[in-house]
């Protein structure tokens, strides 16, 4: 039915997911960690839309992807507010310097 099957989309989604996970794990800048989260959510979204196109999941996949986009925007807003608070208290955004947040 289509020249591109479902597998290439899954590969792209997996690559975005892995890039996001590595970004979250290795970046020391707090904003960089947030960008990793965005990449992870995008990889998951690509999988949802690919399943909506190629499987009987149908429109439900796109609706779930819409919810994911909205929740990602909400998460970015809250996380940036927390990052600004962190910066106000520590004068840096380096997540390795957050030792004193331990109880």
């Amino acid at each position, binding site marked *: 039915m289509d020249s*591109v099957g479902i597998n290439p989309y899954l590969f792209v989604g997996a690559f975005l997911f892995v890039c996001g996970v590595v970004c979250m794990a290795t970046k*020391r800048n707090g904003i960089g960690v947030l960008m990793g989260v965005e*990449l992870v959510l995008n990889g998951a979204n690509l999988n949802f839309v690919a399943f909506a196109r190629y499987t009987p999941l149908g429109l439900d996949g796109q609706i779930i992807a819409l919810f994911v986009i909205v929740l990602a925007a909400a998460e970015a807003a809250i996380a940036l507010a927390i990052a600004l608070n962190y910066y106000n208290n520590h004068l840096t955004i380096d997540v390795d310097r957050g030792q004193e947040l331990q109880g």
Partner: protein
Amino acid sequence: MTLALDAALFWLFALLACGSALAVVISQNVVRMAFWLVLSLGAVAALFFLLHADFLGATQLLIYVGGTVVLLVFGVMLTATGPYVQIRTSPAEGIVGAGLGGLLLLVLCYSAVGIDWGPVTDRLPGDVPAVTQSSADPRAQSGATGRALGLAFLGIRTEGLAVRADAVGVRTDAWQGSHPPGYLLPFEIVSVHLLVVLIGAAYLARAKRRVESDG
């Protein structure tokens, strides 16, 4: 759209998305990371368009590329002071991360290849989602998902959910003779969630007055 052009566009945008995502990981400058993130998210939006999800692609462009990334850039602007823009990761951590990430990618791709998608994709009923119909009229395709998505958020399903459920093998007795379930309640929950997030973000990021210790 011809199949060859479809495939060529897919590979173009897939390479753009993957390359930009890799550049986000490799780049050490936060502002350049934001730029590569814009490219990657835009390429994913193009992939959504290729998957016939027109409303979702537009939403991705508007909210992600237009909203979330601007938010991130504001975060960079408010938190990066001159030389501290670059906070370097040590090379050893980068190598370990790349190795583990490659292994994770291998596992994911291996499991995606290992599944035979044929029985799932072949039983797609032809008359159900207007998204998957290969209609000759491009306008019929472009308007299809917007109306169906909006009605689904209002709790009305336009596609024959029962037919699809038969295709997957789910029991359909539950909603036989009544309306198939829509997404009105999750829509309301997300709306309230966005309101709470707005108030919470404004509360967290507000300018604090310095408390004078008078004791």
